[in-house]
């Protein structure tokens, strides 16, 4: 039997099909326009010239705004954590029973479908412009996201540990406190750090909608065509993100290596 045509053709057909769809989509979006692309390339050239040298005079301003961005990320992550931990426990079948756990998981999924930026807009409307709206927006999204991650970690526990501790005759809160949380503590801490890293990046654009931090300046410099100042703001953001990512990743690795060590069965 000759297998070649039937195994190769679907792959090629799919590639051709996807390429065709991509071209159609680009055309629909107005990108399949030669003169437009040429103009765009020229503009980027001019734009690039204006970016250098970065405007050092705005450094104190953008550095201060970046500190606020990191503060928003930190506060948003911590408030999100405070909400996520009890919700994740409530989303555990053994702790709250199937029906209640299912309802809590639905609620977490719902919170998560709304991106942080949209939550920030909601809170700008609710509490006004400023970092407060950013913190609350980020906290909501982080709560949904961490709630899901923690709930998954709780579900992955060695069932024998849960059964052994249940067998003692404990109540549900005791089960959470003496079996589920100690078994997952390292994973929970590592995931929280990961979300903090993510939130530093997410909070750098919260200022677009007036929710505090460096985003306000990023947008302002674009709109007022101050590209050298924009460059300075981008460099500061980049530096802060790299430093925090690296530091956080190192700490996370430590937790995770402990976690995987404790997870090995005897």
């Amino acid at each position, binding site marked *: 039997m000759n297998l070649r045509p039937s195994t190769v053709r679907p792959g090629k057909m799919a590639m051709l099909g996807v390429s065709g769809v991509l071209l159609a989509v680009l055309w629909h979006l107005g990108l399949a326009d030669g003169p437009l692309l040429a103009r765009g390339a020229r503009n980027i050239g001019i734009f690039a010239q204006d970016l250098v040298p970065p405007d050092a005079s705005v450094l104190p301003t953008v550095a201060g705004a970046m500190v606020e961005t990191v503060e928003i990320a930190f506060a948003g992550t911590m408030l999100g954590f405070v909400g996520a931990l009890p919700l994740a426990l409530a989303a555990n079948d053994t702790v709250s029973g199937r029906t209640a756990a299912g309802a809590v998981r639905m609620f977490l999924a719902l919170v998560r479908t709304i991106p942080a930026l949209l939550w920030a807009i909601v809170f700008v409307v609710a509490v006004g412009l400023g970092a407060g709206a950013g913190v609350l927006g980020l906290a909501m999204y982080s709560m949904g996201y961490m709630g899901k991650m923690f709930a998954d970690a709780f579900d992955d526990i060695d069932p024998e540990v849960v059964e052994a501790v249940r067998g003692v005759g404990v109540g549900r809160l005791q089960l959470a*406190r*003496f079996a589920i949380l100690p078994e997952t503590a390292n994973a929970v801490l590592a995931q929280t750090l990961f979300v903090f890293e993510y939130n530093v990046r997410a909070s750098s654009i919260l200022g677009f909608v007036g929710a505090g931090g460096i985003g306000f300046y990023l947008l302002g410099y674009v709109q007022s065509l101050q590209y050298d100042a924009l460059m300075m703001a981008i460099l500061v953001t980049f530096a802060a993100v790299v430093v925090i990512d690296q530091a956080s990743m190192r700490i996370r690795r430590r937790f995770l290596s402990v976690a995987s060590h404790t997870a090995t069965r005897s």
Partner: protein
Amino acid sequence: MPGVARVAPGVAVSVRDLWFSYRDAAPILRGVTFDARAGEMTVILGESGGGKTTLLRILKGLVMPLRGEIEILSSPLKRGLMGRLDPRVAYIPQQLGLIRSQSVVTNVLTGALARTGTLRSLLGLMPVEHTEEAEAILHMLGIGEKAALPVQTLSGGERQRVAIARSLMQHPTVILADEFVSQLDIVTSREIMSLARDVADRGVALVMTTHELDLAREFADRVIVLRDGAVALDSPAREVDEAALVKAIRG
């Protein structure tokens, strides 16, 4: 001996006509009936997949039988408020179910949680008597000096002792132990079996599953063979020879 209240000899666990199946699968327990006595070591034997672990989990109340009666000291096994399981029945799963990142004494103290009070335990305020009792039990089991170490740093035999200590903190009528010494070398197995023997001698009904026929015949009071979901042999351990056991297990 700390942790063990002397009870009158007699039937501690009575199992009558127990049936069980996982969801829509064929029943794996088909009318299991036996007694386990206080002060005796009852060993359950049977081929892999024969339902031994399932039987212990039913006796612990972790899964519900299709039908049949289970009595602990003449009262039906039942769940308490909010699904709390009966602390008189201690359960040591095959991999022990210890929390590895935590200290030996913390693990042992979880055995007393049913009598600690929810709020108090959640706040981490363990009664001093419980800590003293836990330390005394660990000392008796020969690992008193390991109390503060994380469980993951202990050897297999030491972990087995921690699991025994946790179950003794429940002041159990019955201890159910699954594949009790399967993961230990023969020397350590014998040490642990003779410790288990001591525990049983103080009045606990010890019900264990194992594959070690020699150890079963040497240490147990009673052997029960499970085959095709029912009891194929139920006899005082000293009255059966190895050939009879093998025959009962294989059919």
